[in-house]
């Protein structure tokens, strides 16, 4: 049960598509409603970042299994401008687009594992996992 699936982000409505797919995956894995809402919100943030800053990208889902736990891995990848200062975007309240600046630090708090990899001019890959409790 290690299938991969994903959604291409091109339009604003693709965010909804990614969210829906992620929520269904989370439901299948047996996440509770609160965790489903957390996952859907995190996907929403990541997909919106792609839409806002990179234009296009991809959000993919993967089911990961550890020795005694299962989880949903979300990978948001784009080939956008990259992030200038990662520690800065992980601060609450920092935004270059006039938003709340709670997106990425929020995702980190919503999910369990969080990893961000960005090369300027080449793109950004954010990998994050939520484990089933």
């Amino acid at each position, binding site marked *: 049960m290690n299938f991969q699936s994903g959604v291409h982000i091109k339009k*604003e*409505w693709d*965010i*909804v598509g990614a*969210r829906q797919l992620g929520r269904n995956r989370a439901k299948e894995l047996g996440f509770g*409603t*609160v965790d*489903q*809402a*957390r996952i*859907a*919100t995190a996907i*929403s*943030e990541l997909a*919106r970042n792609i839409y806002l800053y990179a234009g296009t990208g991809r959000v993919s889902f993967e089911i990961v299994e550890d020795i005694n736990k299962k989880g949903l891995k979300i990978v948001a990848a784009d080939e956008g401008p990259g992030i200038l200062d990662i520690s800065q975007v992980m601060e*609450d309240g920092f935004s270059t687009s006039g*938003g*709340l600046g*709670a*997106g990425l*630090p*929020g995702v980190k*708090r*919503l999910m369990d594992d969080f990893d961000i990899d960005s090369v300027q001019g080449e793109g950004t890959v954010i990998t994050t996992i939520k484990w089933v409790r």
Partner: protein
Amino acid sequence: MPEALLKIVIENSDEISRNWLDQVSERRGNGYTANISEELFQSTNREFVNVIFSSINRHGSTEELETFSERLINLGWPLSYLTDGLQTFRRVTIDFILNQSDQVDTEQFSKILTVVDNWVEPIIKELVNEYSGSWEHIVSLQRVALQELSAPLIPVMDNITIMPLIGTIDTERAKLIMENLLDGVIKHNAEVVLIDITGVPVVDTMVAHHIIQAAEAVRLIGSTCILVGIRPEIAQTIVNLGIDLSKFPTKSSLRKGFNKALALTNRDVVNLNQDANPDLEKLLDSLK
């Protein structure tokens, strides 16, 4: 050359139609027309082939073609039925012409292909245009319908107005919400406006940001905004995201928000008769 070929095809239209009908019926098995009755399928096929011939005969689009495609669109026949049918027609016709000629060199062969393509191509183009036109029309109608639903404002009482939000909020809708909210507050002279997000599936930073902005704008024009319908899981995600919603009152349900709104406008719900007259309570229950 085209005229000669046209003559051959028209003169032998019966045989070509027969071949075509055989092929189309044979290929029917693969799904999309499976739930159409045999009788309707055959009669539509016969009509289709007649339409093809008449439009070839008259060099291009005819009224028949238009009415035929319109009817199929209305009945919900798939576009692939028409395009597959026309491809089959192209194949059958070319086969037939080649069988008629004794010897065909490459030049003649390519000429035949071009001529038949010139017959079939405009029909395909017209049908695809008709179909995509009808889809675009439906999509645009639905967009208008969605827009009408997107930010309703209900004046429930003097000075109290409710905006129930259901479904996903995107940037376009957020703009509409803001405009309708401010217009409505002025128009209905509302002191308190309740925004109900019970039906909003996900509240992320963008949605929260728009709600905060709307509430701030409402405050600027002298009214109070109460955010109601915050489900427990939404409350948790808002806390996780670290969004500060403390600038305006929030409530878990519309009922509680409405009571708060009454309190803000110096009113109260009173039972006129201790045990009879539960009307107002009922009214409030129904608003929940």
